[in-house]
């Protein structure tokens, strides 16, 4: 996902430099609690039959499948519950923004441009004099739709193609990998200008489709790498020796072990897709004005960071919360799918 022109970077973002030096120095300290946390892990999973490495290997497993096991775990995980509630809330205001915002996001009074917080307008006004609160609430619909749908599409397409390439190897791998190479070569700006400029639809779907089209190769490479590693594991060899079918091996043994990196990349990509939507709008090929979205507001506010940081912080904060919810959800799902934890 290369970045592009101006604020509305494709990758959309940047950040504070992490505190580098200090952490490198404490690297050794990390080892100290390795053994300690190791112990807790073992305690947490006392009843794992046959030891962690063999879970789910033999045909004599419990009637409950791995996936229903995971679901069982998830429901009790507070992280999952909290993130689920946040996401439910986001979906709710995406569907009915007027529940919590009574204003009209398109009614703007230039006389109030860039003004700060005042009664009735808790988040202040943006560069066009529109109410930032109302626009942040109304922006959820577009941004959450774009972020979630593009991420789902990219994750599904990418992990299926990448997983198959990694699992079967040989010619299939060669063809699929070379196709991803070609897709990698398309600059996002060029792709956007060519593919989206011909679209006249004013819905979010062409934009989502475009992101899936250019976004899947990365997940595909990640999934392929993870599957290549996972298929070397003893339990996969064991399952194969026991005569399990490819489908069964893929779904039951490889997927749960290879999905973690895909989840990680996908949850972060969610945030970058929301920002990418703004880049496309900035290029004049994204959603047609007067669409309201966080990405568009963030990019419009970026040049004015010195004068009116509030314009940037509220939509960016909303974006951060959304990404946080999905990162937490992804973490919880990954934990639930990890047989070694059980």
């Amino acid at each position, binding site marked *: 996902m290369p970045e592009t*022109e101006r*604020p509305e970077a494709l990758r959309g973002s940047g*950040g504070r430099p*992490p505190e*580098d030096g200090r952490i490198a120095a404490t690297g050794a300290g990390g080892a100290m*609690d390795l053994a300690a946390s190791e112990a807790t892990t073992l305690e947490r999973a006392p009843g794992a039959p046959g030891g962690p490495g063999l879970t789910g290997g033999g045909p004599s497993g419990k009637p409950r499948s791995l996936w229903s096991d995971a679901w069982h775990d998830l429901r009790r995980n507070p992280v999952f519950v909290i993130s689920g509630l946040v996401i439910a809330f986001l979906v709710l205001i995406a569907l009915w923004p007027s529940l919590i915002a009574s204003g009209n996001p398109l009614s703007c009074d230039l006389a109030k441009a860039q003004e700060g917080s005042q009664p009735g307008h808790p988040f202040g006004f943006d560069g066009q004099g529109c109410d930032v609160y109302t626009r942040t609430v109304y922006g959820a619909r577009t941004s959450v739709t774009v972020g979630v749908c593009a991420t789902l599409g990219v994750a599904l397409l990418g992990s299926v193609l990448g997983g198959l390439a990694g699992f079967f190897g040989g010619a299939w791998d060669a063809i699929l990998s070379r196709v991803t190479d070609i897709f990698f070569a398309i600059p996002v700006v060029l792709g956007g200008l*060519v593919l989206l400029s011909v679209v006249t639809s004013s819905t979010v779907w062409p934009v989502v489709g475009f992101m899936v089209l250019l976004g899947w190769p990365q997940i595909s490479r*990640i999934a392929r790498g993870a599957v290549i590693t996972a298929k070397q594991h003893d339990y996969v060899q064991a399952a194969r020796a026991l005569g399990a079918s490819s489908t069964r091996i893929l779904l039951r043994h490889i997927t749960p072990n290879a999905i973690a990196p895909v989840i990680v990349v996908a949850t972060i990509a969610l945030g970058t897709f929301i920002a990418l939507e703004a880049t496309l709008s900035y290029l004049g090929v994204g959603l047609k004005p007067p669409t309201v979205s966080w990405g568009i507001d963030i990019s419009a506010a970026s040049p004015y960071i010195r004068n009116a940081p509030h314009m940037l912080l509220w939509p960016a904060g909303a974006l*951060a919360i959304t990404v946080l919810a999905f990162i937490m959800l992804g973490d919880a799902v990954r934990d639930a799918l990890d047989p070694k934890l059980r």
Partner: protein
Amino acid sequence: MGRYVIRRLLQMIPVFLGATLLIFLMVNVMGDPVAGLCGERQCDPATAAQLKKEFGLDKPVWQQYLTYMGNVFTGDFGTAFNGQPVTELMGSAFPVTIRLTIVAIVFEIVIGITLGVLTGLRRGRPVDTTVLLVTLVVISIPTFVTGLLLQLLLGVEWGLIKPSVSPDAPFDELLVPGLVLASVSLAYVTRLTRTSIAENRRADYVRTAIAKGLPRQRVITRHLLRNSLIPVVTFIGTDIGALMGGAIVTERIFNIHGVGYQLYQGILRQNTQTVVGFVTVLVLVFLVANLLVDLLYAVLDPRIRYA
């Protein structure tokens, strides 16, 4: 192994042809670039026709492509609209961009992996939460803003760096731009490493290594980290091309005349020769990077073999 590499190198040929054809067609689909050359007024038809002839745009697309490819194999990548040979543009842009990319990748490796190991070993601890919050900031605040603030703070307020990078772009001037460029990728690398470490630290070989009484430092670097790096290496491999061709925002903020800028200008002005030339080189970089990543798999996990 040797045969595998040769096979992969041979596969580059169709990818190379496919990618150049695709990009060539895409730039052509964008329409007639000549209209943009005359400013706010209509080019008079005669000049427009003459310009088209000069840039070879009056021929059918397939013929343009064949001529172009023929020239490419003799080392002639055509000329940009301002009359400068594309090879000259590439000669000035790529060295700068390669340096910038190296800085960014070193940051990704050093900071990203260190933070990843740290947070992976201390999941749920304050350090993990702090890194998560920084990650969120990095994802939700545009590079433009962070770059600008760093530039104002370090360049104007504290006078530690020059706000813009000089045309020669030595490594020391590229440190801050490299960090800004790497910031989003850092988030990916950190979280990928963290997850892998958290997953693998319960693996049998780690348990065995600890039981053997190996020093913890050694367990982490030789066993745990090495086996956790495959997704990280894959990600960095896919990121190289993106960093090289897509650093448009970073290059703009710090006034770096690199590949991202040239490519962006070429696309906006619909200059086929610039765009295809630069993308061609980027495709080669991608292919080599992905090959290296695949070879690294075998190094990191000895069970993986290529025949």
